[in-house]
């Protein structure tokens, strides 16, 4: 040190070090501001991406939450629908004839025109009429009022997704069909109520009839199975590893195993399920039970890790007090530590289940992407799940499925937000700070 100060003192005075620092300070500050700017920019990029993601889903998906319906008076023509032939009959012709009467100037005797008029209605309309007539055959010969969905092109026309300015050759709805639709709209027959069918119908080839009921039920069964298996197993494993396991090679090995399982790609679990559960045990394909079993294996590490963290957070004084009063080690854990750790465990479990709800790849491999038009009544029936239903619809070529897919995603995200909100609420309401 003295050498340096001597050297300084001996040299002719040029600039002091503080002057040097001051001169460079501006440049250094600018560098820091630059770093800050880049960091802020990165965050903005991430936010922008999230915004674009949500905005694109909402802008395409909100339309699917309404569905264009047409209200018409159907004359249940005994010639088309004779009582003795039920449940067969010309229900589609009866509907077309009734609709034709609402469109003055159409020549319903022309088969092409009649078919085009019938095309306004959804394919499901004739089945709705059939079910009503079969339930009450006395309707034959009477006129009943029905409100049924219109087919997908007209639904899109009503929602403005098919532009009227497009030249006719490039448009899926021809000029005369647009005119019919406008006539119906002018008569007040067209309505656009909330699309309950999205939640009460199962899957369908026709976009206007396709709904999420099958997928919701399938996801419910799968999640229930997943919870019933992974929750007790996960808690049991966590308690043992955290509270009882002797520090041994075996318990180290189990820990490494659990950490690695948490990072194994989900598609590998699908392969496991396919070859073991379906191939060896002969469990049914496409069944939510198998899906839940697979998801349970994937969720268990999450639950174990969360439970161990929650058990660790309970202060040792609780354990010592209980032990001091003569409780056995298991009594300490099950009577005192576990109840105190429960909010943390439940939070971790719900977050794990939310992940499982969005998991798609393993469900694809066990065949939960089948086309199934009814909701599963038990966990062993074939079914889809919410994420696989999204995958199926995203793959469908019909235009109407684009907004259905977005709507299904919004429903899925809604469930995820709800589950996470419950988890946060539990954490804030019941978590104790020691």
């Amino acid at each position, binding site marked *: 040190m003295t050498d340096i100060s001597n050297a300084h003192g001996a040299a002719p005075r040029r600039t002091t070090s503080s002057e040097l620092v001051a001169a460079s300070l501006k440049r250094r500050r600018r560098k820091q501001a630059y770093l800050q700017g880049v960091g802020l920019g990165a965050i903005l990029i991430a936010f922008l991406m999230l915004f674009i993601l949500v905005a694109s889903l909402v802008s395409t998906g909100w339309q699917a939450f309404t569905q264009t319906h047409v209200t018409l008076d159907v004359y249940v023509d005994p010639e088309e629908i004779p009582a003795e032939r039920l449940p067969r009959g010309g229900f589609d012709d009866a509907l077309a004839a009734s609709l034709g009467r609402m469109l003055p100037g159409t020549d319903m005797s022309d088969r092409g025109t009649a078919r085009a008029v019938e095309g306004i209605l959804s394919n499901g309309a004739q089945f709705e009429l059939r079910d009503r007539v079969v339930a009450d055959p006395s309707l034959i010969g009477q006129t009943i009022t029905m409100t049924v969905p219109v087919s997908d092109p007209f639904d899109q026309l009503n929602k403005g997704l098919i532009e009227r300015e497009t030249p006719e050759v490039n448009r899926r709805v021809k000029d005369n069909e647009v005119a019919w639709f406008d006539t119906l709209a002018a008569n007040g027959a067209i309505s656009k109520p909330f699309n309950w069918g999205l939640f009460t119908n199962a899957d369908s080839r026709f976009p206007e009839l396709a709904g999420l009921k099958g997928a919701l039920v399938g996801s419910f069964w799968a999640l229930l199975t997943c919870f019933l298996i992974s929750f007790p197993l996960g808690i049991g494993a966590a308690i043992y590893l955290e509270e*009882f396991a002797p520090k041994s090679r075996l*318990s180290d090995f189990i820990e490494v195993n659990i950490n690695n399982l948490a990072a194994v790609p*989900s598609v590998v679990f699908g392969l496991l399920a396919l*070859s073991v559960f379906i191939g060896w045990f002969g469990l049914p394909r496409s069944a939510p039970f198998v899906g839940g079993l697979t998801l349970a294996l994937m969720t268990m590490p999450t639950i174990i890790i969360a439970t161990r963290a929650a058990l660790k957070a309970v202060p040792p004084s609780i354990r010592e007090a209980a032990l001091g009063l003569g409780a056995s080690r*298991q009594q300490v854990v099950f009577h005192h530590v576990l109840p105190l750790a429960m909010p943390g465990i439940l939070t971790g479990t719900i977050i794990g289940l939310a992940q499982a709800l969005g998991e798609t790849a393993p469900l694809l491999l066990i065949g939960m992407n089948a086309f199934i038009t009814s909701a599963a009544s038990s966990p062993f029936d074939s079914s889809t799940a919410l994420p696989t239903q999204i995958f199926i619809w995203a793959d469908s070529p019909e235009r109407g499925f684009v907004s259905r897919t977005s709507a299904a995603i919004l429903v899925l995200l809604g469930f995820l937000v709800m589950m996470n909100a419950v988890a946060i609420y539990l954490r804030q309401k019941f978590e104790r700070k020691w």
Partner: protein
Amino acid sequence: MTALPFLLLILAVAAGYAINRGAARAIRDGGSRLHSMTSYHGVFAALLILVPVLTFTLLWLALQGPVIDRITMSGLPDGALDGLDSGGVQLILAEIKSVSRGQIFGTPEDWKIAASERYVLLHTRADWFLVAAVCVLSLALLAVARSRVAADFRARQGVEGIVTGLMIFCSTVAIFTTIGIILSLSYETYRFFELVPVTEFLFGLNWEPQIPLRDDQIAAEGAFGWLPVILGTIVITVVALVVAVPVGLFSAIYLNEFAPKRLRSVVKPVLEILAGVPTVVYGFFAILVVAPAIRSFGQSIGLDVSPNTALAAGGVMGIMLIPFISSFADDALSAVPQAMRDGALGLGSTRGEMMTTVLFPAALPGIVGGVLLAVSRAIGETMIVVMAAGLIAKMTINPLDSVTTVTVQIVTMLIGDTSFDNPKTLAAFALGMMLFLVTLVINIFALRIVRKYREAYD
């Protein structure tokens, strides 16, 4: 019918609890001093019945189906299955089952109807046997438990022993899962390598898993060289990292050192939302928004862009990985001891300089570990690439071209296919094996880096 054994089991468990507890109470009321509390006597009986009977029932239910299928098929008249491959045998079994459910299409042969009747009979017998077995086993165990009730019986120790055993079983499930993954993958992979030589799989430059469906069909023989597939995976992973690493890292740097507390408390949860979005949603986002945008941008500057570019799939995967990398980097930066920050600031560096010259180098091992975990995530990520990447394997590193990945091939080869005897489905397991091994090595390596580094500063 399946519910009946479980109902009986619940009844037996409840009865065991009540009987043993009552017996213990009677002893206590008789004036003797019990070793354990009465409820422990009850729980002991309940567990003693529950654990073995439940295990038996579940095993029985798991094995009943396949065994009955096998008995039914082996009881068919001679020659019925001659000249059929496994797919044909499966079809016959499915037909017998649907006949047994009463869904008869056309007129099945007599031996099929006979087989379906035998199938129904076997199932009914199996069901009744299970019910009977549950009853007998429960009663026997109940008698055993009841005989143990005595003043000096150590019921609490008995209960705790059973509970410890159950907990040890729970913790070994993780091991069994790993073993199951390794065994099932290696078994199917072994069968694949019996059909396709290992060297062709590891070093082949062609991936054309289409195999002829009929013998006379003129089609590619099927080529199973995995190099183009793994190359495609690498291309997409690199694209994803190019997006995710800078954005994630700089946002972590900003959040860790410069962000006001209020901003940090808003940004972190929003980034977590990005992490919680299911990947199928990202996949739809890629085909709905990103791929068309890239395509029209490419066309506007005169580039020929394929509809499912590696860029779209990789870019969206990058968005998915942003929160992953930023939270790992944030943790690594926070783990650097306060003394190092104070030292750097005390020597007169700006906060920016402290970050770039002290904190970042000190946190680098942790950050590298996080990036490695992100790499393993990207390699194993499935839905985004299944929806947004291509199906044809090409030897190209052009991100504007369409490439395929390991996971895409696994999913497309297994969707809708049931038989495990052709190279196409088995190839999926071979790819799965490679995927498992690669991600496992990366994970172990990354976790080791992260842990080692954390210990260094604790």
